[in-house]
């Protein structure tokens, strides 16, 4: 039984079905990449896993450690070990990063409070690791952040929360080479037997830094192809038309 087990997941928004039977299994210690054309449903899948209220799951299930999480609120899912690096993180004006991180850590703590000293130390160390200036801790969450700063902020949170599964929705998009290296450095530091990763991307370049063992292709709301690292090269070379041909042929 996989740690995160997505079974025949159908999800819609209003009357529009976007996910049409997604199957995907991710274990701790594994790194999976998910690629697929624009509009194929990658962000929708991430949102549905996290429990976004706009989407209705009409069929199938999402199991975490064998238990269905469909009835759980997003905050419960987060505390159970799921984490999503948003493609477009929203700003929460006036809420400082340190304050926000503290609240989120408190929410995870069995006694409802993380001791401030060790928390601050860890936050500062992680920020330094991600080349973030100390002054960031006092800035409003994502308030006026550049695209790259927002993505670093997402990685910082992942490092603080230490999830069992992290979904990175196009964390590499819009990053310059330096930022990409920093982000990858953060991810690779987290990598290990306690973390399962799903890296959603359009580009091969991040996969050179974060080497996935598995690659899946999502098209029109379904995982239509899965394979090992060698599939990355093929996709890069032949494009999604080739995938379509392949799946047509097997269908």
């Amino acid at each position: 039984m996989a740690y995160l087990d997505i079974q025949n997941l159908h999800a819609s928004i209003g009357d529009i079905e976007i996910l049409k039977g997604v199957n995907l299994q991710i274990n701790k210690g594994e790194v999976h990449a998910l690629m697929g054309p624009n509009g194929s449903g990658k962000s929708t899948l991430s949102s549905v896993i996290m429990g976004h209220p706009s989407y209705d799951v009409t069929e199938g299930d999402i199991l975490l450690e064998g238990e269905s999480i469909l009835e759980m609120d997003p905050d419960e899912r987060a505390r159970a070990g799921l984490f999503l690096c948003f493609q477009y993180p929203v700003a929460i004006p006036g809420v400082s990063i340190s304050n926000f991180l503290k609240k989120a850590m408190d929410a995870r703590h069995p006694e409802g409070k993380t001791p401030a000293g060790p928390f601050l130390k860890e936050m500062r160390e992680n920020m330094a690791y991600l080349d973030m200036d100390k002054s960031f801790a006092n800035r409003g969450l994502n308030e006026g952040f550049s695209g790259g700063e927002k993505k670093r902020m997402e990685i910082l949170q992942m490092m603080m929360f230490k999830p069992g599964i992290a979904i990175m929705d196009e964390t590499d998009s819009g990053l310059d080479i330096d930022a990409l290296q920093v982000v990858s450095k953060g991810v690779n530091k987290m990598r290990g037997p306690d973390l399962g990763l799903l890296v959603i991307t359009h580009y091969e370049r991040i996969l050179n830094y974060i080497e996935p063992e598995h690659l899946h292709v999502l098209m029109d709301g379904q995982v239509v192809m899965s394979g090992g690292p060698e599939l990355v090269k093929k996709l890069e070379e032949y494009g999604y038309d080739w995938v379509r041909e392949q799946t047509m042929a097997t269908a």
Partner: protein
Amino acid sequence: MPEFDTDSDLIKEYKYGFFTDIESDTIPKGLNEEVVAMISGKKNEPVWMLEWRLKAYRRWLKMKSPRWAFLDYPEIDFQNIHYYSAPKQNVDSTELDPELMKTFERLGIPMNEHDALSGVAMDVVFDSVSVGTTHKELLEEQGILFCSISEAIQKHPELVKKYLGTVVPPGDNYYAALNSAVFTDGSFCYIPKGVTCPVELSTYFRINAADTGQFERTLIICDDHATCSYLEGCTAPARDSNQLHAAVVEIVALDHAEVKYSTVQNWYAGDKDGQGGIYNFVTKRGHCRGIKSKISWTQVEVGAAITWKYPSCVLEGDGSSGEFYSVAFTNNKMQADTGTKMIHVGKNTSSTIVSKGISAGQSSNNYRGLVKVYPGATHARNHSACDSLLIGRECSANTFPYIESEDDTAALAHEATTSTISEEQLFYLKSRGISEEDAASMVVRGFCKDVFKHLPLEFSVEAVKLLEIKLEGSIG
């Protein structure tokens, strides 16, 4: 034993909603010249004070209650109100009545000197009278006068005569005229030349008796190069009937003087259906009379069924400045029409307005502000930012910024935004493990940050807690 209202839900919602059963000296309901004279008589006032009151009363009779605000309430029956109610105290004793002591303990206000909050000198007004002021000696050493206005009329008549009604004249508006006629107590502060007041000065207003109006009058004077910070808090029992609170606050700042006035207004707001609650009709105005003087208003308004309040600054001294920082929270059927007036008269005057309105339930929350620049008030500057946050779909918010500039050199900037707590913000915070309620309160706190940071530290912690309590149950 203090009696508690039987409706325990009310108590839960408003923890200051209890009533103290204490013998009181109350004059019969109704308003006429005799009642005005009785109030004056109760306080042993000199004749000039009585005449001042009667003049104001006659003015008031000729005036009409203002109806331009965005507020909906029935006509107030001024004959159905007690204009004076005072707890009976043992005249020989300097100690407070034990019932009163208990009340203040429940309100979290330490009244005996040795428990008194260390950086705060406190005056407490219970219904119509001041029941005690702490830290008297410390203040006297510095020549600071801090006492009830009744005491000031007796002991410092020359100062009261010189300043009372000079910032808010009795005929200024309907409620100011009423207050001038029947004001019962309030605080008086005078900070002498060059003195920086070493503690926060604070007044706590408590309405206890039923059907009683509270008409307090506060007068603060900061002489040349003097500074002080003043805090005001208020609560009232939860009752089904509406009660009127019509205060006047006057501040005078002379050359280089600085006054910071902070309010946390938590009057009983009525129940979910809008039954009961305080009608809060307040005139607060500061006069920057001296050069480079500064008056700053910070208000956190979370209570009262109706709020009609525009703390203002008249910037007469050259180089003087005025500030207004406001958080107004309305819920259920509450209505607020609040804002400020910045009147630029002197040269090089500047003003800042930051207003944050939060509406929930079926409440209505309006910002109304005026920035006026008189001819010759050269190089006046104003910056106004008025933001509204809506929680739910049944509430409303409006912004009425009036700008009247009669000088070409003025630089005035106004920004306004209206937003809701978005589903995406809540989802983002929840996806980090934060509960829905904490997430919403985080967004609201963030929204209010630019105002809260101007409150004295202890007050700001209090304000945040209060807002959180008020928010509970209004999300979702």
